[in-house]
């Protein structure tokens, strides 16, 4: 991966904006994908993920800024068969069988993959003879995935690929995806399942309100949000002191129970002990990506919005924050 990461970018967004009237769906997004990377694209609903993917795939034109794919404009890269994509909004041709459809789209590619191989990899060989309009939601989703891998392409773009899949299918899906990635393909996927991003991605890009919020490995993202959660019990809590502890990201106090999210748990804990406190039931644990994600986006929402109207995303009341 380190070797691959040195190559020229597969995709680059340069200060890309997409405005619909006064709504800034994407507002100055700059990012890069390098060859061979598996990148998860995260963001709350309405963050601009779908609009960004639409622009990347030439379905929408940016208001300003520039998107490049393999050094040219996305249209040419797509028409040269270098990209396989699956969108939430993508549909299938009805009144044909699954095999006919896969064979048809395979035929459009300059570097076609054998139809039987695609059917097998997408896990749809079992119902290849069925008509496309008679499939279940999960089956349809897999056929759409199949259409993204019918060509031997260099970049795969998937928008929430495992929605509508059951747990078993989802695991099978990622096992198949690993085969594709092992062939050196670059993968960009948007997802709602943070666990998926944590397990599958080399890199996570978090966007919120159309802007890049965080970009790094899953562990860097977790570190950024405060990598560790410290919890302890303490009688006679001195609230101002607790809030003044170093490396704090987030504090929650309930009666004698204190829960701290910290970017440096050692420093936070030593400061507490050095001040003479002797807390009980000390626990230090790693923060999951989900909490990290919520913390990062909540922080962004609070710093940009005037009021604290979006408390729904915050863990609890009694919430304080220190620049991480």
């Amino acid at each position, binding site marked *: 991966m380190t070797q691959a990461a040195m190559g020229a970018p597969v995709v680059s967004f340069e200060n890309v904006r997409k405005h619909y009237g006064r709504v800034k769906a994407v507002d100055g997004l700059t990012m890069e994908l390098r060859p061979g990377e598996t990148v998860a694209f995260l963001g709350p609903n309405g963050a601009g993920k779908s609009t960004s993917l639409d622009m990347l795939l030439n379905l929408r034109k940016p208001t300003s800024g520039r998107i490049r794919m393999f050094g040219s404009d996305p249209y040419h890269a797509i028409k040269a068969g270098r990209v396989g*994509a699956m969108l939430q909004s*993508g*549909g299938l041709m*009805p009144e044909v069988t699954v095999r006919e459809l896969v064979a048809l789209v*395979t*035929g459009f*590619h300059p570097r*076609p993959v054998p*139809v039987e191989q695609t059917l097998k990899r997408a896990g749809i060989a079992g119902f290849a003879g069925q008509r496309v309009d008679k499939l279940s939601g999960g089956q349809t989703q897999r056929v*759409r995935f199949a259409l993204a891998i019918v060509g031997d392409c260099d970049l795969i773009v998937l928008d929430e690929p495992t929605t509508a899949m059951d747990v078993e299918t989802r695991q099978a899906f990622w096992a198949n995806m690993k085969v594709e990635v092992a062939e050196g393909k670059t993968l960009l996927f948007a997802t709602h399942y943070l666990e998926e991003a944590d397990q599958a991605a080399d890199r996570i890009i978090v966007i919120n309100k159309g802007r890049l919020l965080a970009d790094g490995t899953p562990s860097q993202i977790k570190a950024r949000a405060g990598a560790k959660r410290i919890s302890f019990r303490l009688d006679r809590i001195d609230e101002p002191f607790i809030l003044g502890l170093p490396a704090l990201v987030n504090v929650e106090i309930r009666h004698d129970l204190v829960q701290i999210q910290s970017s440096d748990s050692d420093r936070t804990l030593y400061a507490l002990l050095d001040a003479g406190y002797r807390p009980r039931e000390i626990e230090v644990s790693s923060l999951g990506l989900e909490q990290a994600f919520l913390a990062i986006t909540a922080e962004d929402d609070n710093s940009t919005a005037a009021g604290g109207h979006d408390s729904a995303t915050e863990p609890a009341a009694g919430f304080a924050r220190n620049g991480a």
Partner: protein
Amino acid sequence: MYATTTSYQQNTISYAPDKETGTMDSTLALARAEVRRLGRNKRYSIFSVGLPVVLYLVIAPTVKHVTAYGVAYAAYYMIAMASIGAFSGALTGNAQRISQERKDGWVRQLRLTPLPANAYVIAKIIASMVITVPSIAIVLLLGRFYGNVHMELWKWFAVGGTIWIGSLTFTALAVAIGYRFVPDSVQPIAMFVYFLMSILGGLWFALSGFLAKIGQVLPTYQITRIGTDLISSHSVPATAYITVFAWFAGFVVLAVLAVRGTRETV
């Protein structure tokens, strides 16, 4: 039918050496798939092949010793029924499908493939041209062997060809409507245009007097008259061709505007 292994091999061969041929092959492959779909669609077969055939079988023998537009009624009715089948197939079939496929995201999906941007519309037009052939041919054969219509061989091809080319007018309109409106609106709009054009164009019954004056501005009327004039060896007035071409050009402009206008949202 698609034999998967052979289709894969064919593609490998045709794509590798020449990119341009590959692009055309893709468009034709999509058109073939469209034809296959239409062939499987019962609704389509009933309205654009079944209905005109049944009407011709029932009505043509009942009207004897009557002429319309200067030819035997059986000859006029043959042209009218061939036109109705071809035009309804080109209009109602395509408009509804295009609109639905846009809504379902199939058109978006195609844009993510190496298929050229306009291949979808071109494939629809090609498929429409292919599928109207049987609906015209069957009615003309009925006219010859059941309705006793006689003319020189070249005239059969000229009459059939006129209706066939004329149906392109309605394919263009179908593209315009399909791209512009959502599926729920397409159905009533297409049906309204279909009945207006077919009734006032004299496809259900021959027009005379005041109705003919109104009808003559419509392409449906003029296409029928070109056919009957060919049979009766009348010279076809230039206004007939001009009228048909004007409608065709107008619908093409609407279609291009509709396709362009929806490029952003697909």
